[in-house]
Structures are given as structure tokens and as C-alpha cells.
């Protein structure tokens, strides 16, 4: 048996005691109290009703009493009441007047306030207007400046465009000239080649002629010797003779590299760039980097300085005689060509702005010049 399953005798005993108590203490009284409360409420309501009715009765009675009083009395009362109400009205009006006066005062104060405000606002407005005008001036000034700048800009642009156009035109011209130049050079080369061929042929012809002349002379000579001198039929002697003849012939015809200088002299202060024989085979010209062209005459053993041709502003690159030997042309590194007459040593013709490297051919009436690039 668990000790805390409380269902012992004491529990029932207590429960019944509690029930008895409740019965004793509250059963009868609950109803009684409830009833009493109800009665009390009723009583209060009736009391209030009674009071109300008695007041009503009293009022009714007094009303009755009033209605029975005399007419004049009533009239007097009415008038009195009227007076009273009028007095009341008067005081009310007085009160209102004073209120209005105070109201007017406050309104005037407000008005002055507002006026001050208005003046302040007006001054503000004036300053603002002035400021505005200032700003407008500035704006117009800036606008005009902008316009000016724009005009300048336009002008510059136009100029630029014109220049550009000129430039392109020039460039085109340049191209055309270059093309022409190329063509001319080509033509020149052709002519030169023809000329060279022609020269070769002439040389050949000359050599042939000479050979033929020599052979003829030799044959003549041989005929003479045969006639006068009996040439031994010795092979050795004949062979030697023949070899001598052939040697002679070769000397006359072929080229020999000179090995011995017949004469030596100082011609220029610096390097010697150009040397050329005159067609008369007596004179020759030299040119050097000392900007001088010198004319010499030789008699086989020594050279005699005949003239110094000055006028060049750069080193002499090449010199050339014309075919008659009366004119001398030279090119120099100052982009110029000059022509002198040989007899009186005077400068005759002068070209500038030509970059000349080499004189190719010179004739009394025309010259070929190889330009740089």
C-alpha cells in the first residue's frame, strides 16, 4: 500500500466537515443576500422616482400659482425680464468690444511685423536682381568670348584644311615629278648604253684600222727586208722576229698598266677627287676637296700650273672637258655644277640644288649628270 494514496478516513471526515461548514456559512445567506440586494436596488430606484415626482408636483403647483396672478403683474415681470436680458446683452457687447480692441491691437502689431518682413524681403529682392543683372552681364561676356573663340577655331580649321589641300597637291606633284625623273633616268641610261656601244664600235673600228695600217706597214717593211736582207731560214731567228712583231702589234693595240710614274707633283692641299685630260692631250684638270679646280699643262716631263679655278663652296667631285677642250665643267659637294672657259679661266654657268655625284658625259651643248638618288 502506497502511503500517499490519500483516501483514508480523515479525508472523508474533513470533506464532510467542509461540506457542513459550507452549508452552515453560505447556503442560507447566499439567497438572503441576493434578495436583500435586489430589494435594496428596488428601494433606491423607488426613492429616486419619488424624488423626481415630488419635484414635478412642486413645479406644477408653482406654475398653477403663476397663471392665476394679475395681468399687470405679469407684464411688469416680463418687462423686468426684458430689461435684465438687455442688460446682459449690453455687458456682453461691452465684453466683445474690449475683446475686439485687443484683437485690433494684436492685428496692428502683426501688421507692423509683416511690413518689416516685407521691407526685408524687398531689399533682398533688390540685391538679388542686381546680382542677377551681374550674372547676365557675365553670361553675355562669356558668350561673346565663346563666339570669338569659335570663329578663331573655324578660321584655324579652314586654314588647316587649305594647307592640307595644298600639301596633297604638292605631294601629288612630287610623285609625278619623281615618276618623270625615273623615266628620264631610264631614257638616259638607254642613251648612255647606246653611246657606249657606239664608242666601242668606234674604238674597234679604230683599232682594226690601225692594225690593218700596221700590218700593211709591216708587210711593206717585210717586203722591203725581203728585198734587201735575206732572212736566214733559221727557225730561231725567224721565230724571234715574229715574236717581236707580234709584241709590237700588241703594244700598239692592247692596254698596259702603267707602273712607273714619269712625273710626280703636289697638286692639291687635300685629297684629289678628279682628274681629266683635255682633248688636246696637252692640258689636264684636277679637282680636290680644297674646293679648287686646277688647270695644268704638261710637256711630257713636268707639269706647269696654268690656272686655279675658284668659286666652288664644297669639295670637287668630278671635272670634265667638252669635246673641243674649250669648256670645263665640274661638280662639287655644295650641290652645284659650274662651267668655266679654259682660255680666259672665267666662270660661265652655275647650277645649284643638284646633288651630283658624278659627271657622266660632257659636251659643249649638253651634259649628262648622274644625280644622287
Amino acid at each position, binding site marked *: 500500500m502506497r502511503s500517499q494514496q490519500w483516501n483514508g478516513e480523515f479525508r472523508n471526515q474533513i470533506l464532510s466537515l467542509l461540506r457542513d*461548514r459550507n452549508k452552515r456559512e453560505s447556503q442560507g445567506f447566499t439567497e438572503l443576500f441576493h434578495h436583500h440586494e435586489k430589494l435594496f436596488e428596488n428601494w433606491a430606484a423607488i426613492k429616486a422616482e419619488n424624488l423626481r415626482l415630488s419635484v414635478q408636483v412642486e413645479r406644477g403647483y408653482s406654475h398653477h400659482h403663476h397663471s392665476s396672478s394679475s395681468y399687470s403683474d405679469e407684464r411688469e415681470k416680463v418687462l423686468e425680464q426684458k430689461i435684465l436680458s438687455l442688460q446682459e446683452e449690453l455687458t456682453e457687447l461691452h465684453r466683445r468690444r474690449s475683446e475686439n480692441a485687443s484683437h485690433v491691437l494684436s492685428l496692428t502689431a502683426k501688421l507692423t511685423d509683416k511690413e518689416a518682413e516685407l521691407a526685408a524681403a524687398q531689399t533682398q529682392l533688390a540685391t538679388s536682381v542686381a546680382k542677377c543683372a551681374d550674372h547676365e552681364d557675365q553670361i553675355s561676356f562669356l558668350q561673346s568670348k565663346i563666339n570669338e573663340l569659335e570663329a578663331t577655331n573655324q578660321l584655324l580649321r579652314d586654314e588647316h584644311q587649305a594647307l592640307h589641300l595644298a600639301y596633297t597637291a604638292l605631294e601629288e606633284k612630287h610623285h609625278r615629278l619623281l615618276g618623270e625623273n625615273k623615266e628620264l633616268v631610264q631614257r638616259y641610261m638607254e642613251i648612255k648604253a647606246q653611246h657606249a656601244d657606239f664608242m666601242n664600235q668606234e674604238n674597234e673600228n679604230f683599232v682594226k684600222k690601225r692594225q690593218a695600217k700596221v700590218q700593211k706597214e709591216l708587210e711593206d717593211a717585210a717586203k722591203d727586208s725581203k728585198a734587201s736582207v735575206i732572212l736566214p731560214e733559221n727557225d730561231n731567228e725567224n721565230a724571234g722576229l715574229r715574236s717581236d712583231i707580234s709584241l709590237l702589234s700588241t703594244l700598239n693595240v692592247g692596254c698596259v698598266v702603267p707602273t712607273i710614274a714619269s712625273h710626280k707633283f703636289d697638286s692639291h692641299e687635300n685629297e684629289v677627287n678628279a682628274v681629266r685630260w683635255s682633248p688636246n692631250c696637252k692640258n689636264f684638270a684636277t679637282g680636290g676637296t680644297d674646293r679648287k679646280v686646277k688647270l695644268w699643262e704638261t710637256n711630257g716631263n713636268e707639269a706647269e700650273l696654268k690656272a686655279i679655278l675658284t668659286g666652288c663652296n664644297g669639295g670637287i667631285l668630278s671635272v670634265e672637258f667638252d669635246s673641243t677642250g674649250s669648256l670645263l665643267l665640274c661638280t662639287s659637294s655644295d650641290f652645284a655644277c659650274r662651267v668655266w672657259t679654259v682660255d680666259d679661266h672665267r666662270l660661265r654657268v652655275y647650277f645649284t640644288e643638284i646633288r651630283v655625284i658624278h659627271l657622266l658625259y660632257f659636251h659643249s651643248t649638253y651634259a649628262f649628270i648622274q644625280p644622287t638618288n
Partner: protein
Amino acid sequence: MSLFTQRPANRKGQKRIRMAEDREVLREIWEARLPVSFQLAQDEVATLNVPEPFYLMVPRLLYFPLVTDKVRKHFIQYVSPEASGREIWLSDGNGQPIKWNYPIGLWFDLFAEGALPWTVTVHFDGYPEDKIMRCSCKDTVRSQFMSYLKEADALKHKGNVMNCMQEKDHNQLWQGFQNDKFDQFWSANKKLMESVVGEGFRHIPIKCYTPEKLAMQRIVKPIDETTGTWTTLHDALLEFFPTIDFSTVRVIIHGVEPPLGTPVQWLSEHMSYPDNFLHLSVLPSTPGFSYFSTPSLSSPSTESGSRVSPNSSS
């Protein structure tokens, strides 16, 4: 009786929690009402006609400030205007001011001598501040009530249950109590009544009252350590009055005299007031009675009234 007071063999590790569940008893106690006739004090009547007494059925478990709103309203038109704004206070038939922090039923049991309806006098004037506390609003009652609950829980469970409760549970306790809602109150209060099977509470929150001396407290354990049996009401009373002669006194709780052999654990679970205290009224059954048969014993006992509630100023 011996069957119930025998302490059971408590097996370790099998601590079942049980709680008060005898709703029949609990309801009888909860629904107790007392008929009270409120009367205005004669010398405070300021009108010509004497006011009617105000009759009201008041719950035994409540405190007076929670029910006297209507009473005050009823009497306020009969007192002088300067007194009408004041706080009212009550006195019983003996002219003794009623302490509002005692449950109504307890005061009735102690001082009314069973006369029904109980006549209570209403006062507006002369609040006896030296005898009873001011009670300006219902929050004062609430804080008083909650502090009693905490004290009781401290005795029963070292205060653990009350501390673990949330504010809303506290609120439920108070609202259930104040508005007379049995289910609302007990759904929260049952946690406070939980105990380990076979062990009971740590201590029983119990207060003992005599007309001469109010709110005595002693440490009462639910189980007698020496014999290992449940402590009975008889044993508990011996803690308060070691030489009491039970033939000369009546022990009253909730207006009834429970058998002296009832275990205090059961009493605490079922017959405690909502503040979780067991309030025992000990009254003489014969006039000229003394609770302590020998004066030599009575003086140390009263002095060593170990814990007396600070409210019992008498």
C-alpha cells in the same frame, strides 16, 4: 491510521513525482463563502439618515482589499466630504483593526466566534497606521501574496519551483487567485504542490495563530526522522506548544477541525491557503484557557518563535 502514517520503503532511483489531485476537497475549500455585513462606523456618519448595512458573500481565501470596492462605493455618500477621499479600513466586532494581509477566513476563524453573518465595521477616518499596513492599491496585495508564495516555496523546494516559473505563470497564479478562477489558479499552483513520492516536501510551510499571538512559525518536517513515519497534525502542534492539552483546544483550518491524526503533508497539499501556507487557528474550547500549562515552558517557547512573519506586529 497507522497504515497511512507508516513510512514506505523508498527505493532509490525510483523517485516518482506526485502532486495534489483531490479536486473534490480542493473545490470545497475554494468555493467557501462567508456572509459579511459591512456597517459604517457610527461616529463617521455625516448624513441625517443612517446608512443601510451592506451585505456581501466574500470568498474565505481572498484578502479584504480585493472585495471592498463595492463597499466603499456604497458608504462614500454617507461620510463627510473630506473623509471620502481616504482609504478605508475595517475592524471586527471587538473593535480590533482587521489586518488585510490575512485571509478573510483565517481572521473569521480566529476572532468572529462563529457568529453569522459576520459584522465588520467600515472606517474612513483615523487609519491605524501603527497596527496595520497601508494598502493603497491592489499591486501592494499582489506583491504581498507573491512574497508569501516565495517564502512557502523556499520551505518546500528551496525556492526552485518559484524561480523556474516564468513571469506569465506568476501572473496566472495572481489572476486566478484574484478573479476566483479555480482552474486557472490550480493549473499553475499544482507545480508548487509537487513532491517526491514517499518523501514529501523539505519542510511544511505552516503558521499557527492564537487570539493572543499571531503567525508563529516552526520548522516542521513532513516525516518524523526518529520513527520514520509521516508527521501528523498532532506532532506538528507539539512543535508549537510542547505541553498542550488537546482536550482544551480546538484546532481550526478553513472553519473545520480536522482529525489530529491527519498527516501534515496531506494537509499542506490540500488545505493550504492559496499563499501555500497552512494557517492553523488554535482556539480555547473553554474560557480562561492557557496554551502553556506551565509558565516556565511558555516563555522560552514564545521567545524562540524562530521565524515570525514581519507583518505580525502584534
